[in-house]
């Protein structure tokens, strides 16, 4: 590619295009084509072998009446509604504590961040054993304070909340770090002025810290929510979607339809519906948050 001098002569226009060419290829192959094909698949029945069979809107109708789909959406929402507020609030509080006069900040920060780095698969396997009803160490500890064995992952009412707790444990360090970075950008004199006015810690927190942290807050909230909708490997490893499909997440359901039953058309339909729900939630979140920020 001996075109360096040629590029300078013919102007910057060509250079730009050349540099962006890899992206064009990438976009076409891995984003545009799949999107279009996904859309096409929604109207067909296809098991990946043989021809596509046109079925019109029947996948949509099936989706509407599919109790498992709605259960998966409900489960995913339960996960998000437990995991996100828990994670964000605890992370903010922890970050605030770490931001004050505490020794060994670095060590604490590193400790909280450790689970973030480890693979979700390893964490899930670890917690599968911790959550074991009769033998797990969590119930062993609780037994010492008189709390009976809790069926963390074998009871349909407990399973998804347990996964939400585990996910919080895993990711919270990241958000502590993000909040910490945001907190460190708040000018000290704001707090000093508040002290002079006699504000309590709680007042300072809600009137200075929280508003100042808003941009980070929005990012954290949206990232957490998007992450919540991607829930897959945890239910897959620990419960396989059970008990009684209480941990069946949206993505796990897509996976099951596509790779257990080989219903590509239907799986694509679920994907579309899920994406639509995700976009809606994100838009509502942003509207709400940006409104709050004013």
């Amino acid at each position: 590619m001996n075109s360096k001098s040629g590029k300078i002569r013919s102007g910057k226009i060509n250079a730009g295009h050349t540099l962006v060419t890899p992206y064009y290829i990438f976009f076409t192959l891995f984003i545009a084509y799949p999107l279009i094909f996904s859309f096409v698949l929604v109207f067909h029945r296809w098991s990946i072998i043989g021809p596509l069979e046109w079925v019109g809107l029947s996948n949509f109708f099936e989706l509407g009446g599919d109790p498992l789909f709605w259960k998966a959406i409900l489960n995913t929402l339960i996960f998000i509604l437990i995991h996100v507020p828990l994670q964000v609030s605890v992370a903010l509080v922890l970050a605030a504590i770490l931001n004050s006069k505490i020794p060994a900040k670095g060590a604490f920060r590193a400790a909280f961040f450790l689970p973030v780095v480890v693979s979700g698969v390893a964490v899930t396997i670890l917690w599968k054993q911790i959550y074991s009803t009769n033998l797990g160490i969590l119930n062993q500890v609780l037994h010492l304070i008189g709390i009976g064995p809790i069926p963390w992952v074998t009871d349909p009412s407990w399973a998804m909340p347990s996964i939400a707790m585990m996910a919080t444990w895993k990711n919270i360090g990241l958000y502590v770090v993000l909040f910490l970075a945001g907190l460190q950008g708040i000018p000290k004199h704001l707090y000093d002025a508040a002290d002079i006015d006699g504000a309590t810690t709680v007042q300072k927190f809600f009137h200075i810290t929280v508003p100042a942290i808003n941009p980070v807050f929005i990012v954290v909230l949206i990232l957490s929510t998007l992450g919540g909708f991607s829930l897959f490997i945890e239910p897959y490893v620990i419960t396989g979607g059970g008990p009684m499909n209480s941990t069946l997440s949206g993505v796990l359901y897509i996976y099951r339809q596509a790779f257990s039953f080989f219903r590509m058309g239907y799986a694509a339909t679920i994907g579309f519906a899920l994406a639509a729900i995700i976009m809606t939630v994100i838009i509502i979140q942003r509207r709400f948050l940006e409104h709050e920020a004013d």
Partner: protein
Amino acid sequence: MRKSRINSILLLFLLTILAVMFIYPFIWMVGGTLKPEAEVMEFSPFGSQWSLDSYRSMLGKIPLFRALINSLVVSVISTFSVLVLSSMTGYALGRLHFRGRNLIFNIILFTMVLPFQLTLIPLYVLMVKFGWVDSYAALIFPYTMSAFAILLFRQYFMQVPQDLMDAARLDGLGEFGILFRIFWPLSKPALITVGIIHFMGIWNEALWPMIVVRKVSMMTMPQMVALYVVGGQAEAQVGTQLAAATLMSIPIIVVYLVLQRHFIESMASSGIKG
């Protein structure tokens, strides 16, 4: 004064308990792999005797080192590709003028919110049609670029003074030369940030390999370990399951302990920029 002292001590106590809650599970996990099977589930990480049976049993059943190599190959090549290709795109979008520049920028922004659930199945079909199933191609190609990286580079590059570029052009450097010889050395933080975040992300990725790879010799580490536990090969022996999880985590934990500051700071800076 007393009150704030007590407060501090209480806070420290609370933090310590929390920190223990974050670290002890890992200690227990590693300890469990070195205990006899019957004692694995006990609370203490120390058993009545040291035993390497869990590791022997697991390594005898699954070619974990092969999976390690696969993960390494895929993650390194993908990260390298993302660094090169995304910086190219970020540079073009940030410093060069050409028709359609804004359109591309907006498209990239749009793809960042596009949920992967939409494209998962068709992407898989594409891999099947290309014959890339069970190959490095399927594991790497869809991860050769990253919208997040492009945007990060673009932002970073926009801050480089124009004179440096002009001077370079006068010296006869073409765009590639400017990018790699001038911008890259100046952008170490961005490179490290993108590098670490992307490497970690793709190293830990399990869903995509599970979809496109079936051959045991081509599996990545998270995938192989996940299937080992779920697929019943571990025969419900807890020790070997923990051993698989431990071996899988050791590389990343070691890297983390050594490069801890970089990890944490790159995550933090990405949040701010994002």
